[in-house]
């Protein structure tokens, strides 16, 4: 009675392989969609801010004001795209979205700087996107502060005859992502999101389709066991999922130039475990939904959104409200994102990442068990 029959499992796996190979839509989801997502998110989802379009209204027109403007022009973070001559024009460039920020230097700027008196520099920003604005302001702040410091230093030198030593000297060096490029950070997380979505989407259709076409009734009337059906169905999608994983890793390495510092063996081993969990989740959804439309919609909502929003991929979990932080512990993608980032960026292995790995093994095993157990060989 117990145990599963290998021949029946192979029969199911073979049939599923044929289904996938003959269905251009399934192949599209399996191979093309992950690549498209990788391209779109990899290129578009950059959180780096450079070349903020800037409007400059220099009312002073003095060497001092030109010096400050030239520092903005020379910065890779800003690009001066407009030179308005009134507040009306400033407002216009911001409103039309031509610029994101405007620098306004008062008429007395040159005179006051030259005479060593305090002067106000006005920066107007389009605050619609709070994150970007904050970032842009901090860049502007740094430039202005730098200039103002140099003025001080120059003044001190004139008084004492030599440049003063600044009391504090900040020297920083970013580890793991030395160039501080966000794609290095984004691509590994993106792989976790893509794998979750694709895997669940692929399998979410398989069981529901059999219910819809009536073939499930035929299968139930045979000696085929639930475990043989589920494992047989998983087999081809597992193979496809691993191909996707390989493609994503290759694209990350050669297209986005993201180095892999950790062990490849560990990378693919843990991905396989995560994949089994995600595929089983899809099967579970499929077995419950019984129609393809409902199953694919549910799979999308149940996998993509949490993986995208709550895994720490997009938003830092540490900044979330406490209640939401607790929820993230239930999102398996959270652990995979953490694992991938650790492995990719820091080259960490099981020694540091074992809790994440253990939880993913638990997720995989639990989902697989649930998928096999949910499937009842009965019609009603």
């Amino acid at each position, binding site marked *: *009675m117990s145990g599963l029959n290998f*021949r029946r499992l192979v*029969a199911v796996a073979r049939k599923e392989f044929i289904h996938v190979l003959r269905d251009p839509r399934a192949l599209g989801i399996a191979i093309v969609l992950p690549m498209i997502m990788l391209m779109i998110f990899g290129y578009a989802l950059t959180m780096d801010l450079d070349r903020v379009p800037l409007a400059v209204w220099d009312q002073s027109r003095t060497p001092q004001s030109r010096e400050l403007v030239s520092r903005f022009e020379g910065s890779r973070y800003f690009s001066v795209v407009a030179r308005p001559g009134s507040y009306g024009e400033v407002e216009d460039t911001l409103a039309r979205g031509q610029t994101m920020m405007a620098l306004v230097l008062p008429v007395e700027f040159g005179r006051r700087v030259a005479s060593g008196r305090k002067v106000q520099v006005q920066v107007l920003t389009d605050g619609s996107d709070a994150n970007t604005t904050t970032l842009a302001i901090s860049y502007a702040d740094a430039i202005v502060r730098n200039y103002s410091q140099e003025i001080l230093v120059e003044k001190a030198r004139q008084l004492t005859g030599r440049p003063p030593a600044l009391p504090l000297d900040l020297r920083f060096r970013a580890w793991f992502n030395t160039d501080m490029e966000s794609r290095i950070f984004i691509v590994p997380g993106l792989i976790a999101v893509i794998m979750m979505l694709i895997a669940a989407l692929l399998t979410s259709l398989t069981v529901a389709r059999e219910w819809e076409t009536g073939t499930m*009734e035929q299968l139930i009337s045979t*000696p085929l066991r639930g475990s043989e059906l589920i494992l047989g169905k998983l087999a081809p999608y597992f193979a496809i999922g691993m191909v996707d994983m390989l493609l994503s890793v290759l694209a990350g390495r050669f297209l986005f130039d993201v180095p892999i510092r950790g062990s490849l063996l560990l990378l693919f081993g843990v991905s396989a475990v995560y994949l089994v969990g995600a595929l089983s989740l899809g099967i579970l959804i499929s077995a419950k939904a019984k129609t393809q439309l409902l199953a694919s919609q549910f799979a999308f909502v149940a996998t993509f959104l949490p993986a995208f929003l709550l895994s720490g991929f997009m938003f830092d979990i540490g900044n979330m409200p406490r209640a939401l932080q607790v929820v993230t512990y239930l999102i398996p993608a959270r652990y995979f994102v953490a694992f991938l980032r650790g492995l990719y960026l820091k080259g960490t292995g099981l020694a540091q990442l074992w809790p994440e790995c253990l939880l993913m093994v638990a997720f995989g095993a639990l989902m697989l068990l649930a998928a096999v157990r949910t499937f009842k060989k009965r019609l009603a």
Partner: protein
Amino acid sequence: MNAAPGRFAVTLRDLERRFGDFVAVNRISLDVRQGEIFGFLGPNGAGKSTTIRMLCGLLEPSGGQGTVAGLDIRTQREEIKRSIGYMSQKFSLYDDLTVEENIDFFSGIYRVSKEKKAERKTWVLDMAHLQEHRRTLTGLLPGGWKQRLSLGCALLHEPRVLFLDEPTSGVDPLSRRSFWDLIYQLAGEGVTVFVTTHYMEEAEYCDRLGLIYRGELVALGTPGEMKGGLMTDQVLRVSCDRSHEALGVAATVDGVRDAALFGRDIHLMTEDAEALAPRLRQALEAAGFQVGAVERITPSLEDVFVSLIEARDRADGAQKEFKA
């Protein structure tokens, strides 16, 4: 079980299935002998499919007992699945697999032994006349061919009992005929065939029939027994013009229990056909209809079923009134 399992392929005692408050199958008892072609007849929604699904282990009975091939339908469902073949109402092979791939798949599922695999495949391809189409996608085959392939796949493991749920619905008459030839051939080899249908001419092909209506077994017997003994009413056939309008008039004539259109004729159920005939002709002619022949006929199976079902409806109606 009191019935000897050796002689009977199917035995049912008070089999019952409820879906919530709805009683889909209401205490059905019957026996099907080995090698018999047993026809399960009834209108759509009568409980035919529900019964067959319980026999095949697809649904759990809510009450009663039953055996299939000597195995208990409540406790030995998985064992039953190994010794039966089942063809569901909906076409249930994979359209995107070729004929051969479908056969190989079910061959694997039924664990047909390596030595027998090739032989069984040839048998199915020959039986379904699909030798030249073995590499055709199943979805491209005409309905009748698909049906034969479904049957073949259900027979790969040489089951002793075969369950067919409306196997010929949506299949053209010629294919239907050749499908029944296959069923006869199987029965000749000793396979028990349990088939549901709502085609009357198919009912005539069966060794024995059970009529199910609103979940209850209304009649049980050979087609001959049904036509002879089961019907207390006599049948009067009337041919006249505008039979559709005439039907309304005929139904009101005293002594007519029920009236129904059969092609262009009207069939009337009555206790005494001899007495009714002249009165009926008179009534129709008085209403301005051109009346041709009025004669008593041997009831067809359809007459029998209509009469039995009407009788059941009358009884139910009376019961309801009584309760109210």
